[in-house]
């Protein structure tokens, strides 16, 4: 396997993402692992904006910018059409944000997954509606500031991996730009499996998380090492595998680098730590 920087780049220079965008790095890594025999679906989200305005585009593979809530069935329609045409070597990857996955697109993702449509679905989770500013989504973590939760988010983040596991789809995995080789191995593994593959990628957003623009890789690593975002995969909804044994650093180390958590009380930090520990124990029980 080539190092990421050696492989072709299908998210070309000149894209319109904010400086230090974790999502752009994530897409670039996915495209590299997918290779040129790929058709991509993107939906309204930062992916829709960073590609550029006609007639220029940063996307280097055939890409369709579809509507917000339908990344999965759109990709499934393309994948089935390719099968009808006998193009069995071409893979379809759908990108959607957390809003397009956890909220408005959850129904259509569930429908396509129930049918085990042969697509790779990548949720680029920056934990709020970042393309429209910074508004709360059901992927926003507990107590985080957003433009629509000025006193902090009162609700806990939805567990999208468990929702996917409940579909018994062949493959779901979490991935992080802080662990690029693991991320690309997961994409390559997903390519080798027929059916609905789901990749949940945490992508730090310096603009929305209120951090400096050089922190996305570090925060990605810290999210994994604090267990806020463990790296694991689920096969057929039942077989759980941990891909990286975390150092189990205290959550403060991750939270305190971000402006969106600056207002947290000690009690709130303890609660987040409890939630993280509880989730880690739950995954352990499923191994």
């Amino acid at each position, binding site marked *: 396997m080539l190092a990421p920087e050696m492989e072709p780049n299908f998210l070309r220079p000149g894209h319109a993402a904010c400086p230090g965008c974790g999502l752009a790095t994530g897409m670039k890594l996915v495209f590299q692992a997918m290779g040129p025999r790929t058709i991509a679906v993107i939906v309204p989200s930062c992916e829709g904006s960073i590609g550029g*305005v006609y007639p220029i585009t940063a996307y280097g593979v*055939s890409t369709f910018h579809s509507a917000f809530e*339908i990344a999965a069935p759109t990709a499934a329609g393309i994948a089935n059409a390719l099968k*009808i045409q006998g193009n069995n070597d071409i893979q379809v990857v759908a990108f959607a944000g957390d809003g397009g996955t956890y909220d408005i697109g959850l129904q259509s993702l569930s429908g396509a997954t129930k049918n085990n449509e042969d697509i790779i679905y990548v949720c680029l989770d920056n934990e709020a509606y970042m393309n429209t500013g910074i508004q709360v989504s059901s992927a926003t973590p507990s107590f985080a500031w957003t433009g629509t939760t000025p006193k902090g988010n009162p609700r806990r983040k939805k567990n999208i991996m468990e929702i996917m596991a409940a579909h018994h789809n062949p493959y779901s995995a979490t991935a992080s730009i802080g662990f690029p080789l693991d991320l690309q191995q997961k994409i390559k593994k997903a390519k080798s499996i027929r059916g609905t593959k789901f990749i949940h990628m945490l992508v730090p957003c310096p603009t929305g998380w209120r951090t400096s623009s050089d922190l996305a890789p570090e925060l990605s690593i810290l999210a994994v090492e604090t267990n806020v975002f463990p790296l694991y995969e689920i096969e057929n909804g039942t077989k759980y595998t941990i891909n990286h044994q975390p150092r189990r650093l205290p959550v403060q180390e991750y939270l305190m680098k971000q402006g969106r958590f600056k207002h947290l009380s000690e009690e709130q930090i303890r609660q987040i730590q409890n939630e993280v520990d509880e989730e880690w124990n739950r995954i352990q029980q499923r191994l």
Partner: protein
Amino acid sequence: MKDFMSGNDGVAHAVKLCRTPLIAAYPITPQTSIYERLSSWEASGQLKGIMMRTESEHSAMASCIGASLTGVRTFTATSSQGLALMHEMLHFAAGCRLPIVMANVNRIISAPWGFWADHLDSLSQRDTGWIQFYVENGQEALDTVIQAYRIAEQVYLPVMICLDAFFVSHFVEPLDIPEQEPVDAFLPPLNLPHRLDVDKPGFLVPVVSSENYRHYKHSAQMGMNSVKEIALSVDREFKSKFGRGYGILESILLDDADVVVVTTGSMTSTARLAIAKMREEGKRIGLLKLRMFRPFPVEALQIALAGKKRIVVIDRNFSVGGGGIFCQELKSALIHSSDHPLIFSYIAGIGGTDVTPETIRKIAIEVLEKSEPADEPQWIMSE
């Protein structure tokens, strides 16, 4: 081959004859039997292709859009609430200039709930950029599906075939099912010029400037403007091959008519009967059946209705705060007519209520005797 079947079965037969390899659908009364019939043929192998059983009509249209962009022929069927749920994607399909064909079984739209024939569901989608046909019976539904692919694949615009709930969708009549070979000759395989292709990467549906958007919408209008000629030529060729033609509208006994009744959908058959009877009594009533609604056949209507003094449009739909939608459009089409016809508007058959020959007769006689139309449309209510 002739067989007794419902309009919905006729539609399903047409989709199979068109060798449509990708169908995406979701159940809704009274469309469901189309979905079931096609599913059974997919399961038995009689229909070569993939049936996508999506979790909503919105996703069904999304899948059709994805597949059509990849270059395969697609079909879906829906009705009422399902069509309303698809609304966003209808704009998308037309905006992408995709030759998707859909059957919409015209059913009332809630609230309140009900299942019966009413045209408001598809008329609420009139501005989405789809070609729309309203058919009179099961045979016309079947034939129009085949014609629709030919039209859609020439002009790259989606087509909606609208058939009345139950009166067309479920009434069983003897239908003529064309043989496969002449349908194959009539409808060549789809060859979409600009499609998703890994060897020629492109970015479909980018963000564009205001100027680009305006240019794009204008070019869509140019495309739509060409539909009338294409639809007429497809219909002529269909008639020469299969013996049945419909035109984009049909004029019945218009030459000497003192009153022209304008209808759409299944009530046209009722009107044919009523008018034949009135002719026997010496009343000079004519009938105009409007088959194509989008694009609205302005010029064809102006020609067909030239010299007419009294026209009455019977609408099985109502735009609350507006009026009967077919009547509004007809008035617009004739606004510059030097004949200055009196145009009367009647609302009948709303919610699937009966439109009998007596209803048509009552309307025609009222129009014959009235000095001028009322500003408000006249509702036909129960006696």
